[in-house]
């Protein structure tokens, strides 16, 4: 069975480039003829995750693998980590900086959106070492 893998480096604190991985993945999935509704879910979840890596995680790496059954996304950063993941998953909880807020981030809706638009999500984090988010959208 064929599996396609895309890998991206997400630069930390470069707000202007945030979103590139998700828009590249969106275009590639389109070319693969994947169901548009599934592409939308993948793109939204990946975008939110990518932004979090930039504004909270100091950048990192994104790996997306596609099979006929599912799209798997792994977002790994080596930033400050999340002390209380259950709290971070709540709608409205945000520690976004003033700079991030001035750009429209900080609603505390990113992680809830990621959960809403994916079929599987697992967030693991070690304070001071970094955060890994695994998500999957079933096709």
């Amino acid at each position, binding site marked *: 069975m064929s599996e396609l893998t895309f890998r991206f480096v997400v630069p930390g604190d470069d707000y*202007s480039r945030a979103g590139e991985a998700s828009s590249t993945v969106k275009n590639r999935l389109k070319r693969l003829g994947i169901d548009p509704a599934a592409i939308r879910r993948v793109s939204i979840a990946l975008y*939110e995750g990518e932004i979090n890596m930039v504004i909270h995680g100091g950048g990192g790496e994104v790996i997306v693998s596609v099979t006929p059954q599912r799209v798997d996304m792994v977002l790994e950063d080596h930033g400050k980590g999340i002390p209380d993941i259950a709290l971070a998953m709540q709608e409205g909880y945000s520690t976004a900086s003033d700079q991030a807020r001035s750009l*429209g981030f900080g609603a505390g809706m990113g992680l809830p959106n990621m959960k809403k638009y994916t079929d599987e999500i697992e967030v693991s984090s070690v304070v001071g070492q970094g955060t890994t988010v695994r998500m999957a959208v079933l096709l």
Partner: protein
Amino acid sequence: MTTLQLDQLDGLTKLTRPAEAREITCIYCCDLLSLAMAQAPANSAWVTVMGNRNTIAVASLADVACVILAADTAFSDDCITKAEDEGVTVYRTAAPIFETAKRIDLLL
């Protein structure tokens, strides 16, 4: 209504190059991007004062009909290019958010 009718509206300037007209079914107002991602209805006219590349990314992902930047919100050439690449039509007006939304709502 469609975006073509917005093209005709006084006080509204289209910043992006002409594109295919899109049906507008409702208005959505919000300046928090992830909230807009969660709530903006597809085919809505999104009125906001948040004018940056991320606005365009969200507009494209949420599949809104167009973005209307209220209160003369600045929008760089780089953002205009990004909007055109993503197929997002962007307008700008000097009027504040509520007045802008109210005016367009009357046309729906």
